[in-house]
């Protein structure tokens, strides 16, 4: 199914919950209301002619100029060989969205990674802890305004440039 048809089908089923379809780009995408993400995803997985069995990827995009964080869902259907790109726009200061763990288990770790690196809170998540960074790390590195802490556990995060070291 083409991206436009998928969008129209969703628009009929969930009026007002999906918006901003962009079909003129390399990979068409559309936005979903944060409050409706779980039911939209459940519908996308279960509807026989959509059947998105897998969540290929779940990641985020920090857009400080527009003061929002986009959570990006890439879905794929092995049955129908089509893909869908969903975006959820959240304010940067209060980035919270429901987890889609109940739809695809793979979301568990993907969401933990987004929480770890972007600071997006997934409500209802069964195990929302940092995954790649240590538990006591400060800040969310993939945010554009991230400033690295000067030291971690007494170890400096700065290193003198190698060349200068050699010159000395």
């Amino acid at each position: 199914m083409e991206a436009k048809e998928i969008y129209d089908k969703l628009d009929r089923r969930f009026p007002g919950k999906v918006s901003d379809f962009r079909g003129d780009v390399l990979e068409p995408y559309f936005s979903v209301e944060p409050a409706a993400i779980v039911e939209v995803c459940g519908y996308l997985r279960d509807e026989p002619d959509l059947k998105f069995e897998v969540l290929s990827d779940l990641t985020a995009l920090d857009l400080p100029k527009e003061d929002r964080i986009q959570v990006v869902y890439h879905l794929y259907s092995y049955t129908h060989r089509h893909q869908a790109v969903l975006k959820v726009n959240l304010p940067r200061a209060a980035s919270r969205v429901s987890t889609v763990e109940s739809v695809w288990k793979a979301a568990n770790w993907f969401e933990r990674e987004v929480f770890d690196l972007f600071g997006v809170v997934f409500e209802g998540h069964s195990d929302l802890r940092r995954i790649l960074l240590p538990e006591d790390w400060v800040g969310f590195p993939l945010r554009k305004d991230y400033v690295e802490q000067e030291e971690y556990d007494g170890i400096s995060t700065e290193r003198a440039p190698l060349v200068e070291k050699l010159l000395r």
Partner: protein
Amino acid sequence: MNETHLDTQDIFRTEDMTISMGPQHPSTHGVLRFIVKTDGEVMREAVPDVGYLHRSIEKIGEKVTWHGFVPYTDRADYLAAMFANQGFCMAAEKLGHVEVTRRGEFCRVIACELNRIASHLISVGTFGQDIGAVTPFLHALRERESINDLMEQICGARLTYNYIRIGGVGYDITRATCDRIAAFLDHFEPIVDEYNRLLSYNKIFIERLAHVAPITLEDALQYNLVGPNLRACGLKWDIRRDIPYSVYPELEFDVPVGLGEKGTLGDCYDRYWVRVREMQESCKILRQCLKMLPDGPAIAKVPRRFKPPAGEVYVRVESARGDMGFYVVSDGSEYPYRVRIRTGSFTAMSIIEKISRGLMVADLIALIASLDVDAPEIDR
């Protein structure tokens, strides 16, 4: 009578034990840690703890130029670096509307398939070693060494290649190299049979792995397993065949799937056996490529200051560990706005918690080895 019964219950009741396995355990293939809750030899569950090898490759991607990021992609998965090179370059090419030269595409496929064989050799070799067979490991590494030599001849590096560039490949493959690859294939194809006699058809090996840790297709889809792990569950799905890229549509090859011939569908043996057969398919692809290799330039003309127009793409390549996704966003500047690398090992690792419930501790080793997880690829 009743009382005695209660007593024995009490005597044999055991406390759950929590053990930390790793991060330096030899069978965890890199720096991984499992928090294993066991009741004797049987695990309640094994919770993976990852992140020891996090090098913030995605953040680095936002700080370096488009051309400059290619060598970093090598480090995402050092056992199969060529695929990460290709994935990122394909994403950049799609954003910048760059046409890859035809010879460049063939050079890419040759390099990638050699890399796939090398990566699978490590996988099946260490698999044997992890469960106690040391000799096959040495045989596999000997063959891999020849591939490393070939890679050195192709691009000057043995592990982190930086070979595939935006627009094509860095160095052309010469006639002499082609002859050497052909000679290697002549030597390698019979070796696979020898390897099968030594390990794959070995009764002890089969009995050790058949019926161990089977993964159902539903679970595989729920957890988004990809590549050989997904195919072992019986789904015939290969990005090279089903979402074709590069020159794969012109090449003939089979997609091996798990059949459950020795045990249950999707068990450890199936995952192992899919990889062995994939090596043979890669040999087939290589032979065709060597025959079809066209003349012409190996790389297209791409500006040094590469600035693709604003936009975003999600590109998939079939890496040795399955579907590797590159979500790359450009804002029209010299630097990528966001580079996201989705790897097969990451999702494969997340399924271990579920599959490990009720497994023996010794089978956890077989499970990790059969999923072919690669720590740097999980942590990036």
